[in-house]
């Protein structure tokens, strides 16, 4: 995506004042500010207080570990990265200031062996318990293994722990639930996602961008286009490549088709979780028709292989799009209208799994989950880049934060995606890719997946090989809001409904 111009104003200027620095690096899709370790806490305090959204936190290894915090300055339409070299094995406990950082603090400890100061217990997030010294890691092994999430709980009164998973029904992904309950109400909930860990970021090291994209689009198969786009954009930003405008239009069409089929799939999952089999069948007919539209337009039901670094490998078959899309979306709309008129379905959605606006902001949630809680965050608008400059989407927002709000946001977004696809198709999409210049570099890329903002940060050496790739699909962000939603006065049978309405993947978060 297009490199941003340096804007030493607003949050950036005030951050520089707060940390007493004038050092700013522009380019690579973001403004980067080196922050000394001694000033990191001040910087995080300042940015969190200024309303910046902590979008990601990750580490890179070299002579020393470097922490990078990616901040969305959404009202200022740019990303800001703070870069801090860690001299010893500890850094300030950032999640005490920005709670959204906790999951990443745990992950960084597992992968690099550095931890927040203060000795707070860290959870196991990606590596399995049997991961020994030879288990592939991005950096050093921690001196002590991370404290187990399932370390003995203090469960008071009549509460007990109900284990569920990791093997679940039919084709649902591996996920272990620890449900703490007093019989029916959910008192607490924790998740193990490491069963699905594939070490993708580790596997991406040493790969060329074309090879990396093949793996990246499989990090979260249901967001193949979005994750691949974010990685491709990061590579393009790092190397200064400008994809052809027609190729960006093609990416936009693929991304909106991805959103459409995902929202149809979420609707089917909602019906299944509420026991409405006929509604599920109706939603799955819509889903199947939309997947066939994908296959007809791009040659793949799940839109794999469309995006490549510098552009796209395939252009859309616009005739197939024109023929297939109205029928597929019409099917979705008819099923949705019938569901909205079914009281027994709507009753299960209303006031279930509430995520408050404050929780959504505090945890840095993204996508339909955040937008249903009144947080209008959407990287297509907040961080606009082609093709959305000229074709901005209307953001769907609701305020109640319950399952019904998330369902309504998805329906509104599906309608908006159809409109956008029409606009983008009329603007002349095509195929082709810009050549990737050599020289190496580092860059940030993003795309608004059906689950929300997908981020990627990639550094390449002079030979064009990846030295570090950070993948941050939206699932990584939003699972951290799931337990809050599950605890908000819900009962056992609400959990599958809440999970369906979040419509996240375990693969995306476990990577």
């Amino acid at each position: 995506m297009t490199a941003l111009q340096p804007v030493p104003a607003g949050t950036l200027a005030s951050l520089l004042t707060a940390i007493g620095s004038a050092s700013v690096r522009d380019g690579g899709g973001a403004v980067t500010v080196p922050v000394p370790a001694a000033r990191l806490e001040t910087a995080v305090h300042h940015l969190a207080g200024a309303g910046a959204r902590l979008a990601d936190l990750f580490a890179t290894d070299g002579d020393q570990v470097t922490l990078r915090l990616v901040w969305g300055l959404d009202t200022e339409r740019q990303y800001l990265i703070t870069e801090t070299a860690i001299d010893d094995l500890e850094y300030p406990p950032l999640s005490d200031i920005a709670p959204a950082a906790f999951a990443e603090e745990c992950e960084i400890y597992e992968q690099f062996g550095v931890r927040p100061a203060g000795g707070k217990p860290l959870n196991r997030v990606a590596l399995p318990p049997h991961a020994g010294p030879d288990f592939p890691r991005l950096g050093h092994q921690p001196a002590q293994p991370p404290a187990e999430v399932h370390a003995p709980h203090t469960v008071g009164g009549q509460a007990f722990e109900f284990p569920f998973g990791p093997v679940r029904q039919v084709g649902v992904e591996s996920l272990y639930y620890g449900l703490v309950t007093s019989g029916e109400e959910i008192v607490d909930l924790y998740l193990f996602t490491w069963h699905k860990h594939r070490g993708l970021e580790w596997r991406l090291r040493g790969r060329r961008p074309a090879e990396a994209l093949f793996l990246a689009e499989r990090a979260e198969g249901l967001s193949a286009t979005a994750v691949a786009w974010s990685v491709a954009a990061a590579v393009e930003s790092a190397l200064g490549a400008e994809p052809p405008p027609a190729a960006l239009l093609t990416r936009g069409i693929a991304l909106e088709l991805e959103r459409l089929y995902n929202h149809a799939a979420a609707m089917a999952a909602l019906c299944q979780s509420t026991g409405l089999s006929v509604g599920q069948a109706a939603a799955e007919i819509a889903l199947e028709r939309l997947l066939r539209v994908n296959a007809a337009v791009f040659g793949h039901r799940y839109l794999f292989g469309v995006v490549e670094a510098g552009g796209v490998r395939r252009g859309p078959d616009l005739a197939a799009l024109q023929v297939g899309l109205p029928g597929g979306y019409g099917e979705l709309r008819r099923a949705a209208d019938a569901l909205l008129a079914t009281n027994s379905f709507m009753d299960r959605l209303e006031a279930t799994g509430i995520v408050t606006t404050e929780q959504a902001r505090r945890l840095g949630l993204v996508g339909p989950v955040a937008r249903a809680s009144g947080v209008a965050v959407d990287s297509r608008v907040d961080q606009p880049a082609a093709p959305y400059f000229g074709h901005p989407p209307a953001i769907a927002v609701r305020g109640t934060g319950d399952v019904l709000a998330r369902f309504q946001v998805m329906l509104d977004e599906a309608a908006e995606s159809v409109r956008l696809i029409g606009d983008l198709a009329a603007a002349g999409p095509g195929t082709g890719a810009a050549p990737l210049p050599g020289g190496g570099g580092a860059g940030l890329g993003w795309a608004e997946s059906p689950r929300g903002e997908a981020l990627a940060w990639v550094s390449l050496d002079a030979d064009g090989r990846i030295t570090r790739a950070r993948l941050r699909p939206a699932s990584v962000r939003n699972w951290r809001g799931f337990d809050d939603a599950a605890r908000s006065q819900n009962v056992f049978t609400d959990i599958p409904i809440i999970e369906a309405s979040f419509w996240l993947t375990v693969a995306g978060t476990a990577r």
Partner: protein
Amino acid sequence: MPLWFARGLRRGIVTTRYPARPDRSAAGLPTPPAFRAGVIDRRLADRLVAVCPSRALHRDGGVLVFDVGRCTACGRCQEAAPWAVTPSGEFELAGTSPAQFVKQIGLVQEVGQ
């Protein structure tokens, strides 16, 4: 519920006769490649091996070895050499051992590209 009952009556049965008959949508699915014998030499084989991201191809002397079980039908080999590689049209794979998915394509001596 009457709504759904009436809707079901109006829509009728929406399903497929697959596998008794081929499903029409299968025609649009990506399928693993078929390699034309007699047109692939060692140099072309090495190019095909290089573009395969899932490592379904490797060359063993004068033979191109194709593991269909590893193929994701991404189409990169077909794009690289459309005169030598075409879609097989076979999307149904079944076997009792992984070895049954491995095909061997004999290579020819150097030919003009």
